[in-house]
Structure formats: C-alpha cells, structure tokens
C-alpha cells in the first residue's frame, strides 16, 4: 500500500453558496470519507488556514504568502492509501470538491528507501 498526498485547490470564495448548499457540501464530504475509511483508503485530512507566509531564498524574504487575491490556493490536504497512482486518481475523482468546481492534485509520497 502506498501513500498519496491529495491537495485541494480552490478560490476560497463561498459568497454565493447558501446555508443549505454549504451543509450539502459538508455532508457529501462526510459520507465520502466514511466510505474511504471503510475501504481502508483514508489515512488523514486537514484544512489549511487561508493566511500564511512565503519565505524565499538566502535573504529569507518573508511575504504574505503565495496567495494572490481571487486565485486558487491550497485549502487542505488528504493522505490517501492506494496500490497505484491509477487507483489513487480513481479515488480522488470521487472527491465531492470537484462537484463545486474545485481542483485536486494527487502525488505519491516517496517512501524512505531501506
């Protein structure tokens, strides 16, 4: 079993979503993660704060983060368990975030070689 990092990218503007739609979004995720957990495909998931810092180079120049206004940024991550990248992609396609036109990125986490 390999581990895959799934990043969620979205433009965090929920302005047009109503209370009912937001609840629907939460519930869809909840059911999806439950399903993944049952199948042993879920390890963990965490949201990320929108703010943060971007630090670059020898000078250690700190800026307000890589988050340009209105641009897609990483809003959270999942660690998925799968046999192959293909399987991980299939799992990721089930992420309800995609129904709200968000994007996900799946990358295999390289295991430590013995």
């Amino acid at each position, binding site marked *: 079993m390999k581990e895959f990092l799934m990043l969620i990218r979205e433009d*965090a503007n*929920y302005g047009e979503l109503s209370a009912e739609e937001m609840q629907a979004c939460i519930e869809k995720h909840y059911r999806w993660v439950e399903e993944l957990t049952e199948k042993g495909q879920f390890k963990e998931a965490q*949201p990320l704060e929108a703010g943060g810092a971007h630090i670059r180079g020898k000078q250690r120049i700190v800026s307000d983060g890589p988050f340009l206004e209105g641009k897609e940024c990483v809003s959270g991550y999942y660690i998925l368990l799968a046999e192959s990248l293909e399987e991980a992609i299939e799992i990721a396609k089930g992420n309800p975030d995609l129904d709200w036109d968000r994007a996900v990125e799946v990358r295999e986490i390289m295991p430590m070689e013995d």
Partner: protein
Amino acid sequence: MDTSGQLAAHFFREHSGRMVASLARVYGMEHLDAILDAVQDTFETALTHWRYHGPPHHPRAWLSRVARNKLINALKHASRHHHVGDTEALLHDVSTTDPDPWPADEANTDGQLQLLVACCHPALGERDRIIITLHILCGFGIPELANALQMKTEAVKKAVQRSKALLRQKTPNLRQLNLADAARQSPTVCTILYLVFNEGYKATRNAKGIDFDLCYEALRLAKLLHTAAPAEAEVDALLVLMFFGVARFPARLVAYGDWIPLEDQNRSLWDQQLIAEGFRYLDQAQHSGYAGNYYLEALIASHHCAAPDFEATDWKAIHHLYQLLENLEPASTLIRLNRLIAKSYAIGPLPVITELETIAVDGTPGIAFLLAATKAHVYQRAGNTTRARAAYEEALSLAQNPLDSQLIRKRMEAI
C-alpha cells in the same frame, strides 16, 4: 474524522435564522448587516473545517460561539475605525453583566418570533416581506431566492437591501417586542406564511411542480408562530392547511415529475402521521368559532384527507364550504372555479357548464389555463368530446410548464 455527528436535515438553514435572532436581540437590529455577515462567515468557517473533520460534537454551540466572536470582532473593528462610541460600551456591557449572553432555547424561539414579526412589518410590500423572511429567518441566499420565486437576481438583491434598511430603522429593540405583540401581529404573519407555502405549492411556477423547501420553511415558521399565539384559531387553521397539503405531496407527483390528478392519486402514499397532526390542529381551531378563509380551506382539505377513495369524497360538503369561501372572497375566480368543480362532482357536470362559460378571467397567474382545463374536463365528463377537445387545445396553448402540458396531453389521449 469525528464519526459522531450527522447534521439534522436543514440544520444550517434553520440555524441561520436562530443565530440572526439571538445576535439581533443582544446586539440590536441596527447591526443587522454585520450580524448577517457574521452568520454567513460562520457557515463558511464551518464549511472549511467540517468538510475535513466532520461536524463537532455540539454543532449548535460551535456555530453560536463562532458567530458571536465574529460579530464582536467586526463591531470592535468598526468602533475603532468609526468611533461608534456606544458599541464599545455595549460589548463591555455584554461581557460583564451577562455571563451567558446566549439565550436559552426558549428565549431563542422568542427571538426568532420577534424577528419574524419584524420581517412581516406592514411598511414593507408583500413580496418584500416574503423575500426578507426567507432571507433572514430561513437563510435563503440571493440566487436561491431568485430561483424559488422566479425573479431576477438583481431584483432580489434590491428587495433585500431595501427591506434591510427599513428593518434597521423601524424595528425597535427586539427584547421589547414581547410575545403578546407577536400574537397581535399574527394575522399579517399568517398572510406571509400562507403566501410562502403557496409559492412552494403552486403548480404554475416551475418544472419541479412543488418546491418542498418553501413549504417546509412556511410550516416550520407557522409552528413557531403557534407557540406565541396558541389561542389564535387562524394560526391553527393555517397549520391544518399546511399539514394536509404536505401530507399529500408524495401522491401528487410521480418519480419522473408528472402531476397526478386527485382522482388518480394513490392515497396510500398520503402521510397519515402528518394528516393526524393536521386533524389535531383542526380540532383546536374548531372550538373557537373562527370561520375565516384558512379555516374553510382547512375544512375542505380535511374532507379530502378523510375520504378513503375519490368516490367516497363528500362533494356536497365541499361545495358548501366553497360557497362560504366565495362569500368571503367574492372577487376570486379561483374560488369560483373550485366551487364549480365541487358542484360538478356533487350533482353532475351538465348543470355547471352554463356558469363555467360565463366566468371571466381575473389577474391570478395561471387562471386562464385552469379555466380552460376545467371546462375541458367537465365537457369530457358530460360526454361532449368536441367541446372537450377544443378546450384542451386552448389549455395546452396556455400551459406555463411542462407538467401542465403533460397532464393535458394525457387527458386528450383518453378522450
């Protein structure tokens, strides 16, 4: 992920109204905009977190705490920038004198009621009252409202702005609006809830046929109103109407979205529990001597709900009730039409044809279609297929949604 928490259906929508009510009571209606923003923000924060971790163990308390903190921060920020002197005092006041600024459940119900009365303020137009009630008490967003009420987004946005401005000015301190006031205002509130329910029930509006959400919210708020005005027979009667209506929804539409006329409905699909609840409120209304239009409509619905099948319907009683209703609203074409339909089942189709032909169409949306469809059906039952076919053709040309057209086509095939 926390596996404890399944959220109740419409939890966010209902809590939206609860939170606005609680915050408006404590911090005042003059901060309505900041309050609505804080509540919307809170749901967004919930969306961000709960999506990953599932709902917390106490979702209600979580939402309330976050909303309150967001509002306090916003008000502090505003007072720092605009020198709103008493806001600071207010915040101070709340934190020192009110160890638990979150009203208990009972008070929260009061808060929603007071807000409901405020939203039904007579200074607002009828449509504005419907819009602002759904927006503030039921958490309907602008696009959702535009969709539900078949309006342009811009028009809804303007209505919301206009109403909010008026509410900020006209609403007294919500704490001073007591339950006796709410009971006194119940007729205006009833009107709005009746309209919201009808908006959802209306056949002519959209392709779905019934907008369950609108009906559900109208019913929820009517129950809320009932807690303030338990002795108001008008509120009882309104609840009867709503319960009887909702109970029969499942039989009115089939899966692929066709209207099922009353005579063809599978009555085993009617929800007997909801019907029983309706009869409970009817019993309360019956002992009051009130005989307004909701009550008469409720009685009519009760005859339908009590009939084991279409043939067993007491059409004579229903006809009589429509006569009484027509006395109350002599100008309504819809009531007159319904009376004639009842009469045609009570004594036969032939005697109503003459009167049907004299009916003039008023401004009620969709009434021309209903008139043509009714004529066609009555002619059909009287055996006059030529007239029936002509009237069905006319109805088809007036149909405003696919469900209506579908029903007419089916009936034409049956000739």
